[in-house]
């Protein structure tokens, strides 16, 4: 390969990686925006008694539907609500459910923490950190994401407890 061709090849590769990075970043930015839908007051009131009011954009509509159809058997606890409120929350969750490529996946057991993107984003977190009493469960977003309650999961606001 001539030196000129090599240089062109390198330039093409560089452009391709920049474009991929850009696209990934754009998708990520979409998810970040989606995670900041102003929460429905009833959603926060009912769901955040036991766990973070997870941003609706982190699961696809089909997952939310199954979760809301099964509140009396909600991951080992009875989280039942009256039918009218269940319908209202379900409609809101489905309307704001994730639609981006990564959020469209229906994760096993409809657990956000089992989604491929979640596992990938957290692959550098050591097993010992997950077991800390201050963390306890991967669903405990606020243990490290200090602004999770505001729907902000940005890198700069992560503080991993020791």
């Amino acid at each position: 390969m001539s030196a000129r061709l090599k240089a062109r090849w390198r330039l093409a590769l560089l452009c391709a990686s920049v474009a991929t990075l850009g696209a990934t970043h754009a998708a990520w930015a979409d998810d970040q925006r989606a995670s900041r839908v102003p929460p429905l007051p009833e959603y926060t009131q009912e769901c955040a008694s036991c766990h973070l009011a997870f941003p609706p954009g982190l699961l696809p509509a089909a997952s939310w539907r199954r979760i809301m159809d099964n509140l009396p058997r909600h991951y080992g606890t009875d989280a039942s609500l009256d039918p009218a409120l269940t319908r209202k929350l379900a409609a809101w969750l489905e309307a704001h459910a994730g639609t981006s490529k990564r959020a469209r996946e229906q994760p096993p057991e409809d657990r956000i923490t089992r989604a491929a993107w979640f596992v990938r984003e957290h692959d550098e977190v050591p097993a010992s950190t997950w077991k800390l009493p201050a963390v306890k469960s991967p669903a405990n977003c606020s243990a490290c994401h200090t602004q999770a309650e505001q729907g902000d999961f940005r890198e700069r606001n992560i503080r991993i407890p020791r």
Partner: protein
Amino acid sequence: MKPSKRSYGIAALLTMAAMLWSQVQAATPAELLAGYSTQAGIAASAQRGEQLFNATHGKEWSCTSCHGTAPTQGGKHASTGKPIGALAPSANAQRFSDTAKVEKWFRRNCNDVLGRECSATEKADVMSWLIGLKP
């Protein structure tokens, strides 16, 4: 006479207040305890309530799994670790102040701990113990 803008405003405010009132169903711990005791038909026993609260009932969790052994202090959700405010009204004025909320949590939590709904006697017993706790 055409109704003024202000009278529309007042009507709207009154409607909203009525709606809020019907949703909140405000009550005091003593009123709720009296209600459950009447339903139960026997006097509430704080001692029985304490036993029910601390014991397991054939399932993994007891009330203490989430509420802790000292209800004048807060607890932590047994699976998520989320902090839970103190349950004793003397330590937390918001407790037992809303009929619908109390009913909702008794329904869910009795199901998690006992695998069934609690009877009026059981609710009265637990409430009577909690109301008597001093911080």
